[in-house]
């Protein structure tokens, strides 16, 4: 009976090549395990947590100090949540770099993007719940970003905050989203995501040119099941060890009159906060994210010249051009961060011109120019085909984003000035 239950979720026979760990690194499965852990620990936390500004912080302290295993359960929830972001993002990269978003998996790529946004929203709404200084100001900054979205920004902001400022209504909205709205959305989208994988005939693999496919077929039980269970157990062990050693942070109770210095967004949004330091908010929170989102949404629907499914980085030339993009993006974004620190910004150099132009259009024009030069060099040196070109552009965009994120997390100290990470602590 157990066997037949498992076979409801897994096919009877699978391709042996899909079982190689370096094909998928088990990332999708890990994400699912973390979702289960989060649902379970979240449910337990809900028995004690109180979503009111006067009580929230105290109830967290109560869970931590007075409830048996309270701190442990909360630590597991904290570590799983942070792992889930990393694992989901790596899963997204794996799918991209093995060309697993090509048709017929286009729709599933988009469902996956939806799930990525849900995971981020889960983390962001959960971030506010402890109601300490860190969470209060991070949410103030992030919901402050919404104001710069044209037309709907003000409305969106007052909908998420439930008023003009972050306060009691915000906490109850975030709690409702975190514990009802988002879990509901996830429960609907996750099975859809898995069903589409089955529908596409399992994970993306390269096509077998000669010989018969049946040669590669092995039974899902025990071969697939064993690997999945081992991956899950190792992951759970890791989470438990981390939760025993490192406590989830609890800061001072939120004080709306005092912003700590520096006030930072949650780590996974630090890339945006870093962009905000350099560019007018309208471009940083609206134009640039929209361009990236459109790029990701159209990816599966581009006509690709070769079938690179299941092959990491497409080809030898694909690897080289991707590495070139990575290095160039790294160097360029470090140059941007350092020059902006030491030279006066454009609005100071060009007084009298509206800031939208001096701090927005001009830096964006420079960025577009840098991108054009990158694209020109890429095509001059490597002559990549369309698959490799798309990959190089993707690598360029995400390398800039990740460099910015790392700068924001580890290299920004008091008043968001550049510092070395070892001087940051304390």
């Amino acid at each position, binding site marked *: 009976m157990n066997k037949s239950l498992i076979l409801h979720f897994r096919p009877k026979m699978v391709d042996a090549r899909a079982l190689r760990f370096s094909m998928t690194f088990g990332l999708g499965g890990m994400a699912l395990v973390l979702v289960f852990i989060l649902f379970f620990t979240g449910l337990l936390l809900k028995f004690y947590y109180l979503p009111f500004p006067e009580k929230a912080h105290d109830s967290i302290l109560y869970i931590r100090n007075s409830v048996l295993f309270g701190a442990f359960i909360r630590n597991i929830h904290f570590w799983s949540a942070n792992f889930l972001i990393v694992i989901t993002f790596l899963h997204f990269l794996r799918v991209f770099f093995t060309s697993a978003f090509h048709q017929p998996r286009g729709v599933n790529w988009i469902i996956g993007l939806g799930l990525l946004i849900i995971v981020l929203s889960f983390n962001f709404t959960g971030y506010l719940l402890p109601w300490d200084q860190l969470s209060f100001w991070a949410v103030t900054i992030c*919901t402050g970003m919404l104001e710069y979205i044209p037309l709907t920004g003000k*409305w969106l902001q007052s909908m998420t905050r439930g008023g003009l400022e972050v306060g009691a209504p915000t906490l109850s909205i975030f709690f409702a989203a975190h514990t009802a709205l988002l879990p509901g959305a996830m429960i609907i989208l996750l099975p859809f995501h898995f069903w589409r994988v089955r529908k596409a005939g399992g994970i993306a693999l390269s096509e077998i040119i000669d010989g018969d496919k049946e040669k590669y077929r092995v039974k899902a039980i025990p071969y697939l099941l064993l690997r999945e269970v081992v991956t899950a157990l190792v992951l759970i062990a890791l989470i438990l060890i981390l939760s025993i050693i490192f406590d989830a942070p609890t800061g001072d109770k939120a004080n709306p009159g005092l912003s700590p210095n520096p*006030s*930072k967004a949650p780590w996974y949004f630090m890339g945006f906060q870093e962009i905000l330091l350099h560019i007018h908010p309208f471009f940083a929170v609206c134009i640039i994210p929209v361009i990236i989102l459109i790029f990701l949404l159209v990816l599966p629907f581009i006509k690709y010249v070769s079938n690179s499914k299941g092959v990491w980085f497409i080809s030898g030339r694909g690897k080289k051009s991707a590495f070139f993009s990575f290095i160039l993006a790294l160097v360029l974004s470090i140059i941007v961060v350092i020059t902006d620190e030491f030279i006066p*910004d454009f609005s*100071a150099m060009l007084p009298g011109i509206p800031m939208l132009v001096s701090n927005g259009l001009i830096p964006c024009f420079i960025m577009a120019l840098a991108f054009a030069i990158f694209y020109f060099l890429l095509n001059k040196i490597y002559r990549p085909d369309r698959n490799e070109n798309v990959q190089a552009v993707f690598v360029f965009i995400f390398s800039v984003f990740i460099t910015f994120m790392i700068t924001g997390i580890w290299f920004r100290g008091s008043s968001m000035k550049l510092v070395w990470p070892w001087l940051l602590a304390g």
Partner: protein
Amino acid sequence: MADTDNKEKSNLQPSRRSFLNTIWAALGILAALELIFMVFTYLGRKKPGAQKEQSERLIDAGIIDKYPVGSVTANIMGKFYLCRMEDGGFIALSSKCTHLGCTVPWDDKGKRFICPCHGSSFDISGAVISSPAPRPLDMYPVHIENNTIIVDTGKLLKRNEFLKTQLVYTKKVSK
């Protein structure tokens, strides 16, 4: 089958059935729109406490002599700074940074407001010294009656630049 027969017929001329189906679909869409409208209206409701009472809004900041020229005084209750310029003019500045809403502290040594979140700075009049803040600090209307300063915290005024006319003076300008 009867179904395919119907389909073939409806291809030739619109049948009563297809007309009714269209009506049903339209009604369904209408009902869905109504539901969406209702949900958003419900969620967008004015939360209690969003609108302050008149007595809470008007804050008595005391007599003018309390504020020396060139000083910045934080008013905790109203979440604003009362600044007195070198020429004696008053301005009440919101303590929220115009960039993303962090609370900006006054740095008395450097004579400027510095935002801890993204490092924007503003001078005593609220004007931007360094970006990323896109506009000067917002202000509240100041009234001076019988040498007493009253700030209306119910009315937040946004501005794109600092103008002399934004300052409020006593009737007799001290020289």
